[in-house]
């Protein structure tokens, strides 16, 4: 009997809630492990550049002299290898997907604390990063 085979599914669908989420009235699904976007805690970054070296998309640029950490959100493939490699755990993965931006709005740049050194000489800041290699 090939008739009314879909009837079970139809009846079930009639009396159940819709499978789709009524976004944006209802927030999108989020899992604890979801890879949304990379976030940084600037106070903990020591500009060691491990994240820059490990990034397969070359989205991260760390300037040791200027003490800045920069990510191009459009280049980033959200693989979380920077998060895994970060020695001070200043990088983390936020489960929320990044908001949509305009063409060049994907670049996110922050000034970071830099390496923890006693002497305040700014040109010496580059040294510990290279020694870490």
């Amino acid at each position, binding site marked *: 009997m090939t008739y009314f085979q*879909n009837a*079970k599914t139809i009846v079930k669908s009639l009396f159940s809630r819709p499978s789709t989420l009524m976004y944006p009235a209802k927030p999108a*699904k989020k899992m604890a*492990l*979801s890879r949304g976007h990379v976030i940084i805690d600037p106070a903990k970054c020591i500009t060691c550049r491990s994240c820059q070296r490990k990034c*397969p998309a070359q989205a991260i640029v760390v300037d040791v002299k200027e003490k800045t950490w920069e990510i191009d959100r459009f280049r980033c493939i959200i693989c979380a290898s920077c998060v*895994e490699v970060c020695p001070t755990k200043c990088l983390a993965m936020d489960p929320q997907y990044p908001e949509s931006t305009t063409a060049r709005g994907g670049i996110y740049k922050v000034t970071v604390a830099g390496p923890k050194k006693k002497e305040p000489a700014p040109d010496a800041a580059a040294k510990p990063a290279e020694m870490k290699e």
Partner: protein
Amino acid sequence: MGKQITVPFGPQHPVLPEPIHLDLVLEDETVVDAIPSIGYVHRGLEKLVEKREYPEYIYVAERICGICSYIHSNTYAECIEQIMHIEIPERAQYLRTIWSEYSRLHSHLLWLGLFADGMGFESVFMNAWRLREHILDDMEATTGGRVIQGVCKVGGVRKDIAPEKLDEMLKGLKNLEHELHDLTDVFLNDASVIHRLKGAGVLKTEDAYYLGAVGPTARGSGVPIDIRQTGYAAYGKINFKPVVESSGDSYARCAVRAKELYTSIDIIEQCIKKIPEGPVDVKVTGAPDGEFFARAEQPRGEVVHYIKGNGKKNLVRHRVRTPTFTNIPPLVTLLKGCQLADVPIVVLSIDPCIGCAER
């Protein structure tokens, strides 16, 4: 016997989700020849292997395909592990098998939806993709990515699944199996579906063998090749039989994929029952020196990854032979003799993935 005319088909076509171009030589409404051409979405991913270090390249390898992404990363990792003689922990092997089968489930459901949509069977399309959402949710909850999992790495896997989550997945699969029965029974027993698919695009067993068909395309024609039986990852410890149909038409290929859904669920259930405790990765030092071919069964068929390294962090050569690429010669044979109106269905019945065929 009419005059021969050539009708271009694709790369943009309402039914076809993939950019393949076919020049169809027609006599009246019958296709007498098909000349395929690809090259619309080439990205040069294999060349990139010279620019990225081998542990990071796995994320690039995973992006070869957007649907069978996980299995690409799995095969690439296996290649490197074989060259470097790395023994990965047993738990990692089982986890790899579980995720491979999950990605097969999601790929087959996606294909079933698109195939039904190609025939105008919209309710099956909606229902297939509704069920696929449960698979994607489980994938995201365990790996962190819905489609690009990024969970495989050289020397194991990056994430472990907690035992409670495994139990939850097992329960979810049980429910899914019931719903899948409703879905596939409707699709495979529907009179109009049978009328449309039976006898459309027949690939004979010997043609399938000699033209090098792989995966469900070959199994639908009665060639029992399934690379999972070679026992990579944890498949060697799992009891399963490849699904083989003998008639070789579009309906047989469709039935193979529909029945493989249950094989996948069965494999995952066996894995969850057998999975041992232990670590999920080993530390990898050094760089690969040597070459290796690794084969794996993707949802669309056999994939071959070839890797050559020279002891440096950057590999020398990476070559992928994807299942769709080998399925194009059988596709040309399939198209000969079919009606123009059947062409979209026949092309879809090999489950083409041109993004992966061109890389």
